[in-house]
């Protein structure tokens, strides 16, 4: 958390940097970038950087929500399905004549509702989050299928710019990347600078203590799952707007990438620990890797082995820093 900033006031700049929570994985990311840049200079072009950023948007946006959940000690495996369903609903609304802006708002509502249902099940029935969201992952996917019957829905409207628009000419900064950064910044402030954020850490740190400190732990849970659901919907909307089509497979399997981004970013799956900036770095590491695989023409097996190895190196670096304190 931001706590350490204070402690480091008297330190040298290097030590200061090293004591930031995200230092380890940041180093991993930088080393990775340098290696890739040396191997293929294209990596450092503006265009490629934008590509990487745009590619991580969906994962990063969803991972912000997942981070909140994981910090409370929960988990959400249904993020991918929620993204799929939301994207489909967005296209479905517009196809049914709803105004695209209204459809976007409705879509966020759909995502929020999915998240809320998850948290209601978890809180009211006192269920384990992992297994509950594993179940709802299937249920939500089923509903998405129910809406489309398995066929893709075309999506073309003025709102598509949130997915495929750019600012500063065709080769400028993608709107979706700007949205991602906005989400990261708002998420960071929410987590570290607001009362709500403190409560999130408290619930994950020790739920009973949190309750005895006067925190409505259930409400905190409802809120984080709902936020996460809405962010999945945002990701779904961006995806659909970018591809101009909504289909049933867009979000499938994403949950693992999302959780990996959060955990590589320094969160603990037992709760009480995590960072939004870390989420961005975690997502970026994976994005840069995938980009690098293509630039360096890795074969599948080396892609897999490298991905695994880099994840381990990143968390080892993260661990070294944590042990120092």
């Amino acid at each position, binding site marked *: 958390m931001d706590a350490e900033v204070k402690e480091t006031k008297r330190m040298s700049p290097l030590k200061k940097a090293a004591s930031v929570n995200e230092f380890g994985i940041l180093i991993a990311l930088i080393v990775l970038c340098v290696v890739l840049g040396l191997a293929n200079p*294209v990596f450092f072009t503006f265009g490629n950087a934008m590509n990487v950023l745009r590619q991580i948007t969906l994962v990063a946006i969803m991972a912000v929500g997942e981070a909140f959940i994981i910090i409370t000690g929960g988990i959400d495996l249904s993020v991918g399905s929620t993204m799929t369903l939301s994207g489909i609903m967005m296209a479905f609304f517009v196809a049914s004549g709803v105004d695209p802006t209204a459809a976007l708002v409705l879509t966020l509502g759909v995502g929020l509702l999915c998240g809320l249902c998850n948290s209601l099940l978890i809180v009211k029935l006192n269920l384990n989050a992992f297994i509950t969201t594993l179940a709802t992952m299937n249920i939500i996917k089923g509903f998405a299928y129910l809406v489309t019957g398995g066929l893709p829905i075309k999506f073309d409207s003025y709102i598509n710019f949130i997915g*495929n628009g750019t600012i500063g000419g065709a080769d400028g900064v993608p709107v979706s990347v700007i949205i991602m950064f906005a989400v990261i910044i708002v998420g960071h402030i929410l987590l570290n600078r607001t009362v709500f954020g403190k409560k999130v850490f408290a619930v994950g740190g020790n739920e009973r203590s949190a309750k005895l400190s006067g925190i409505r732990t259930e409400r905190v849970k409802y809120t984080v799952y709902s936020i996460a659901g809405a962010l999945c919907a945002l990701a779904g909307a961006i995806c659909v707007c*970018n591809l101009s089509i909504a*289909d*049933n497979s867009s979000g499938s399997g994403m949950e693992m990438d999302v959780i990996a981004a959060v955990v590589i970013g320094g969160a603990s799956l037992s709760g009480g620990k995590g960072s939004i900036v870390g989420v961005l770095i975690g997502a970026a590491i994976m994005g840069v890797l995938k980009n690098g695989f293509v630039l360096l023409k890795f074969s599948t097996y080396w*892609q897999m082995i490298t991905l695994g190895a880099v994840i381990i190196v990143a968390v080892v670096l993260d661990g070294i820093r944590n042990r120092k304190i």
Partner: protein
Amino acid sequence: GCAAQTASEPSASTEASAETSASASAEESASSEANAPEDVEMVPVDSEYARVDMVNKEPEKPLRLAFLSLQNNAFFDLVAQGAELGKQLMAEHNVTVDYIVMGDTMDAQTVNTAMDAAIVQQYDGIIVTPFSVGTEAYIDKAVDAGIPVITLYGESTEPSKRMLFIGQDAYSAGKIVGEYVADKYPEGGKYGIVTGVFGVEVFEGRNSGFKDGLAKNGAKWEEVGIMESGDSADKVYSITKDYLTANPDLKAVYVSSGGNYGASKAIEEKGLSDQVISAGHDEVPDNLEYVADGQMVVISQDTMGVAVSSLIYMYNYLVGGVEPESDVIPSNSFMIDKDNVSDYL
């Protein structure tokens, strides 16, 4: 067995399948005419996998082509072999081909990531195996950036600005398989489907094509289920067992995913090889063995030929300005059964 059939009209509307039964053989359909400008000479290529002539002209400057493929099962190994042959051919003409594995999952995200990276690297042409819906925007992006794109094997029904598609339309291919089964059992009966992943367009297309194909002779067919295998042969095996247990009078299992041999295995174990047919896709070696044993039929898609030819089409366009004769060129699709499997082994 039944006559070999060609799948045409890929990526066209679903009604187009009526014309798909034109007979052809691999040799006949090779070396098709391209619309060459007057001054360009077209010469045959010395390769059994070339399905088109090549312009007799060398490029003014070295060219770089990207061949974007996936790698997760034996099918893509055939693709890689074809691309390697093409690469050697191109190397003789001062063209470098980068064979790039996009990843191991067949989804739009993976393809789009790779398209982006290829565009940034300013290849002169991109050949890609998109399969999924949602890749069109990125194909268009490449074309808008001045890079011609050829798509192979499978693409969605959504339009894009790609110059050419070579391959099977999922629906048509499924339909051919369905018609084959319909001809084998004119009296109709029960069938089960094993699909890869629910909601993925290739599988959905193949499945609905298969169902429509069964209707060919007007016989009554009853579907006993459609289940997800995630390409795992073990799951295909389990699902087939369940189908057979619940429906001892089953006639056909259609596997639109990978892992077809799981179905044949289950049928064999139940001792129903004479009664039940396992039908699926792709001329990969593990399938062909079962085909040879008469326990399976598959539809081929001339995998290596498509890969080699795509590079020639791209060369013709870039060097000679020769555009393909059509923006959709069906791959040579044949039903392979034990009668003609020897051609492929």
